[in-house]
């Protein structure tokens, strides 16, 4: 079975983000980029699928040359080969999905894994868009997955509970925390990854349908208010929650 896992290369969540001088991008200076944490879960699920069913895991990423670092990490975890769809410019979710869909079609993948979102732009839609473009079934935000031949039984998180979905291959799965515990890229895997190939080609480019007008930091949080430290403060707290915060 051909298994594709799509990954993005994102600022480390521990990094302090500074908006760039153009007010439209982040200042990449001093920012460490890593494999998107949700994509690690996707890579793990792809590897588990391969271990259970056999097949080849191909890692695909759209973006500049640096994305190869995250592809290499996925290879170090155990994926078989990589494809970098080169694109040096900002590409919106639709553009990324188009480029990925074209590659996945060429790969003739039966199952495609994504992280449920990338932690840079947080749009949470590239997986679903790609599925739609390919005409594949799609389970988003999966927290459990079972494959039985062509049949897929998956659980996804919904407000206040879980939804069980049955569908079939070919399919796109976007992965949520809890689906698995991603393995470490063992050091031998890192050395072995050096010998695996990353194919580079230009991404299928399309016009962006979204334009970023401005990027700014959210306003700093208002300081909290302490209304008292014992039970005598409860009536005032209730009044404030009701009348000011309007949450009860």
């Amino acid at each position, binding site marked *: 079975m051909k298994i594709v896992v799509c990954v993005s290369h994102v600022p480390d969540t521990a990094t302090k983000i500074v908006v760039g001088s153009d007010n439209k991008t982040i200042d990449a200076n001093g920012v460490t980029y890593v494999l998107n944490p949700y994509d690690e879960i996707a890579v793990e699920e792809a590897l588990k699928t391969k271990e259970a069913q056999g097949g080849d895991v191909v890692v695909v990423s759209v973006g500049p040359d640096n994305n190869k*670092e995250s592809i*290499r990490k996925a290879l*170090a975890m155990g994926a078989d080969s990589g494809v970098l769809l080169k694109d040096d410019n900002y590409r919106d979710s639709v553009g990324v999905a188009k480029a990925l869909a074209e590659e996945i079609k060429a790969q003739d993948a039966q199952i495609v894994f994504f992280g449920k979102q990338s932690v840079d732009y947080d749009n949470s839609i590239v997986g679903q868009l790609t599925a739609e473009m390919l005409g594949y079934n799609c389970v988003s935000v999966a927290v459990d997955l079972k494959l039985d031949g062509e049949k897929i039984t998956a659980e996804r998180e919904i407000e206040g509970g879980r939804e069980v979905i049955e569908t079939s291959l070919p399919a796109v799965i976007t992965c949520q925390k809890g689906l698995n515990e991603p393995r*470490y890229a*063992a*050091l*031998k895997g*890192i*050395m072995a990854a050096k010998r695996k190939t990353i194919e580079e080609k230009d991404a299928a480019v399309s016009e962006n349908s979204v334009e970023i007008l401005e990027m700014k930091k959210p306003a700093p949080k208002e300081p909290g208010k302490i209304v008292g430290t014992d039970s005598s403060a409860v009536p005032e707290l209730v009044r404030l929650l009701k009348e000011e915060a309007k949450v009860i």
Partner: protein
Amino acid sequence: MDFNLSEVQNLIRQTVRDFAENEIRPIAAKLDEEEKFSVELTKRMGDLGLFGMHVSEEYGGGGMDILSYVIAVEELARIDGSQAATLAAHNSLGIGPLYYYGTEEQKHKYLPRLCTGEYLWSFGLTEPNAGSDSRGSKTTAVKDGNDWVINGSKIFITNGSADISLGCTVQAVSADNGGDKKFTTIIVENDTPGFTAKTMHGKLMWRGSNTSELYFDNCRVPGENLLGEIGEGSHIMLKTLDNGRLSIGAMGLGCAQGAYELALKYSKERKQFGKPISKFQAIAFKLADMATKIELARNLLYKACWLCQTGQKFSKEAAMAKLYCSEIAKEVADEAVQIHGGYGLMKEFEVERFYRDQRLLQIGEGTSEIQKIVISRHIGC
């Protein structure tokens, strides 16, 4: 000049950092408190591929360069000195001499098991009355027929008496012609009759690592346990320590980095006089100094690694790196506690452990004073 690390080195840093933060940080304080060496955690470090990183794949190693290994030690030390000590001692002092001076037979016999983390190996040099004066050591090895018979004792030996300690490389006096001593290194497996390894307790620091006293009482091993040539012991010891200094340097660097990060984080959270203390110049300047020292230490250590792996002389720079990284670990950990104020004195705060753990670094594997002797000889004093 290119200061960029390779893709592989960056990935190794990322992997070891994730492992240290997720698997070691949650239990480091407990292992320290209980003074407990964890066989399980050691095995997991082995599974990750940390042992024998610089050993060629033929013997079960990782086939990586010295800098990759130093980065791994640095990243462990950033979280916990004890686990970094287990790694540094096993790789540099345990595996190192066997790998560089062992016969093919010896290498195939021991290295594959040592590279998995299944077993540990130690290096017996220091004695109760021979620390900085290593030539004053008294443990003897006498040839009897084809065997070597060893008598004496060793102290402060890392990884010598854990449940998974397989053996040690012992430096012993094999000839003494009126004070002109010849040293020879010999392989002793832990289960050899006449050999006893005893765990030392009551340590100030590295409490999650294994430290031992080794006793040799007519301990008899076969002639083929000779490591290197007869009389080559001093040379083997000096070369082993040159390499070891790089990993102790990495421990100092990682310790400083970890303490600095804790202090920086705390200084942004702690408010006094209505604002985070990081906004006061008195604290900000301390942090600026700490960051600068760490940057200097890293550049010096990595340069020494580069000299080593490009086959150039690195003995002077290794001593400088060991000296400087250890000394700034002390300074940075001290200021990190100062920034934490009263909380820095409590075990509940991680920085307290860093303050204790750094203290070995100016003493172990050649004191700071001995490093200065090495450096001063190199510069022609």
